């Protein structure tokens, strides 16, 4: 699946409103989460558009992709931090201890996904970028499946 396809999946995972399984508590997405989602959307699109930049050598394009990937990592880590620290009074229902533990685990996993993208970009290992982004997508989807508002 091309990078464009992966990016669209990430976008849909972070923006779409999925039905929450009935056995999970309802949880309202924080507004700031959506801000980061928009930033992610723009960064992913710009990553996909690098190939069309004129008058750039392939190493120049790698430099541009690396720059976008570093920004992407920053946004993901910031999103993970905010998600983990959403105050309880911002939610409609309070999570029980077990749900809180699962939720926190996903937030920290998202942070590690951002770290992974950061490391890949720092080392110029851009051939690994697709996989790193795909891993982030899976983390988003799993968390959304359990805690996303189903409106």
């Amino acid at each position, binding site marked *: 699946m091309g990078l464009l396809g992966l990016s669209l999946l990430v976008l849909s995972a972070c923006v779409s409103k999925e039905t929450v399984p009935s056995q999970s508590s309802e949880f309202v997405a924080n507004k700031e989460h959506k801000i980061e989602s928009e930033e992610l959307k723009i960064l992913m699109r710009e990553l996909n558009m690098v190939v069309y930049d*004129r*008058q750039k*050598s*392939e*190493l120049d394009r*790698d*430099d541009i992709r690396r*720059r976008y990937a570093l920004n992407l990592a920053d946004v993901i880590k910031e999103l993970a931090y905010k998600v983990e620290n959403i105050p309880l009074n911002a939610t409609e229902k309070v999570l029980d201890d077990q749900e809180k533990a699962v939720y926190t685990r996903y937030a920290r996993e998202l942070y590690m996904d951002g770290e992974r993208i950061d490391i890949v970009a720092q080392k110029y290992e851009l*051939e690994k970028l697709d996989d790193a982004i795909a891993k982030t997508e899976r983390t988003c989807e799993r968390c959304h499946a359990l805690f996303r508002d189903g409106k």
Partner: protein
Amino acid sequence: MRMSAPVFLPLLLLSLPLLSAQEQNELDALKAQAEALSQRIEAYASTRGNNRETDAMKEEKARGYIMDDAAGNNPPMEQKGILEMSSADTVLSVGGRIDMQSIVSWPEGPYIAGKIPLDASGENGQLLMSARDSRLWVKTRTPTEHGPVRTLIEVDFLGTTASEATANSHGLRLRHAYLQAAGWTIGQTNSAFNSYVTLDTIRYPLNYTLVRQPLIRYSINDRLFGYDLSFEQPESTLLDKNGTIIMPQDDIVPDVVARLRYYPAWGEGSLALLGRYITQDQATLSDGTVVSVSDGVFGWGVNVSGKIKLFELDDIRFDAQYGVGLGRYVAFNAFAAGSIDADGGIDLQATYGGHIGYRHWWTPKWRSTLAISYAATDNDMANIYAADSSRVNSEVYGSQLNLLWIPLPNGLVGLEYSKGVRLVESGDEGEIDMVSLLVRYDF
């Protein structure tokens, strides 16, 4: 009554039923099978005995190989289909572009500043189809203690032109050949003076800053800024009395470019400063005349380019250049850096230009750019023969409008209309209208 054994046994044997013919046949068949099986067993035993010796020899040989391997005496194992790299950690990547363009222009000619046909020489164009802008690149990345060493070689097929009547076997042309390591860029690649932000068009704008040349560049990058200091191949271009741009090839000082790149949230931008030493040493003019003295003059230039993001995904892109002695860095060498008089004295000239384009996204896959471009220079016509003034470009301007479609990731299909005008010092003017159809795929 009791019988004696000598009597009993014969009577017993006689009492046994005799074998029928069928049973005898079956017995004979079984005997034959047993005989054949026995022969096979003997034959197997015979060969096994021979192989037993070969296995022993093989075992001895294997033991010998092991000992030789341990001693490092064996040559490397040869295998087919292995790609050998100088380092086991090197990542090798191969890619390129398939680019097919179909062009119709009125009159026939390129959409390049200094080559737009003048009215007097133009004729109606023909359909031109070309895959020559297809590219192939090979890049490597090798981790080292100083960071990754990256290399790139990229070629296209805009080299020697072959006949279009038969095989269209156009020649390779070098685009890039350089390495990057620890901030250093060494080899042939884009000049640091080129506009960093470019228009999203099929044809280059008429003022385009496009120079690829050998250079040594050092760069420092952080999240918001990038800094480049580049020493690049010098090449002076001078307009002689016959209205011809000559290249004396007497340069001894590299062109120096300092560039600042900026990556804010609202877009990106660059500012490049160029310094050069334009020189000639008893140059030969286009009519064969050799000037008597040498001369050299310092020239300079500045280039600003940028992209400003607007609502949704739209953006505005622009660049602007100005300099004295800019010459070949602007408008594809349509203008000289200066002029050379009959005595060899150099007089640099001001050159300026710019372009601006608006890119609009109709849908996530369809987009358009509307752009205009302009470039001009202040030729010193005092040293030019009036009869040759039609050779001397003074001004160019143009416009472009396109519709581009992304049918699949890394693919592009586009249609573009371009109009260009070229003015020369004699007062003549040439125009070109061009329609380009592009199909491209980057792999």
